[in-house]
């Protein structure tokens, strides 16, 4: 049976993040999250995550995780890659329930974590005002 998780909140986001990092420090940089700064309705938003990494057998990106603050759940995707990818870049599409910040975290082969965040405005929020 499906248990409904709590709606994503900054706390839920932190918890989700901690689960991935095991409490390790997450530094800003090396990750580029590309997402349009304005979207019309959030029903489908394409984004990509690129990590600055040589992607060699000893220095590569192990995983890319993407989270949101205001979707029903914080998780969007966990992508696991390795040196055979050659390039640390993924593209997919997400729903965005509201204007919010999207976070991308990369886990590197040396155990370090790097991140990038982008604020997105869902323009349709504006015309519905206090209901959102």
């Amino acid at each position, binding site marked *: 049976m499906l248990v409904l998780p709590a709606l994503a909140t900054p706390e839920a986001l932190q918890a989700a993040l901690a689960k991935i990092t095991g409490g390790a420090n997450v530094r800003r940089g090396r990750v580029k999250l590309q997402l349009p700064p304005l979207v019309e309705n959030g029903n489908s938003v394409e984004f*990509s995550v690129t990590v600055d990494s040589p992607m060699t057998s000893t220095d590569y990106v192990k995983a890319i995780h993407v989270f949101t603050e205001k979707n029903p759940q914080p998780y969007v995707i966990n992508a696991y890659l390795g040196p*055979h990818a050659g390039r640390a870049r993924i593209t997919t599409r997400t729903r965005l329930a509201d204007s919010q910040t999207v976070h991308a975290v990369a886990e590197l082969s040396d155990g370090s974590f790097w991140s990038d965040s982008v604020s997105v405005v869902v323009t349709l929020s504006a015309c519905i005002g206090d209901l959102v």
Partner: protein
Amino acid sequence: MADAIVSVPPSARPGEIVEIRALVRHPMETGFRHTQTGERIPRNIITHFECSYQGAQVFRATLHPSITANPLLVFALRATVSGRIEFRWSGDNGFSVTESAMIRVA
């Protein structure tokens, strides 16, 4: 639309990094929606995707309800030898789809 559409370059040079696009038909029902009469629509999503190259896993992903219907995944792969690239999506209610493509490396 077929159940799955994958895009793999038919040929590449040894060591070339190629872009792989994988799209599959699926509603990605979030589990948070209701019918018009207020009943919750059960979650029905793809939870896992994996890609293997010559039998070895080269990319995998865990998908969540935020991912849009008909999920698209684009990622990179270093072409080393000619061979088969296999794709597999699996998820709720026993959902499973596979697709494959050949790449010629020379």
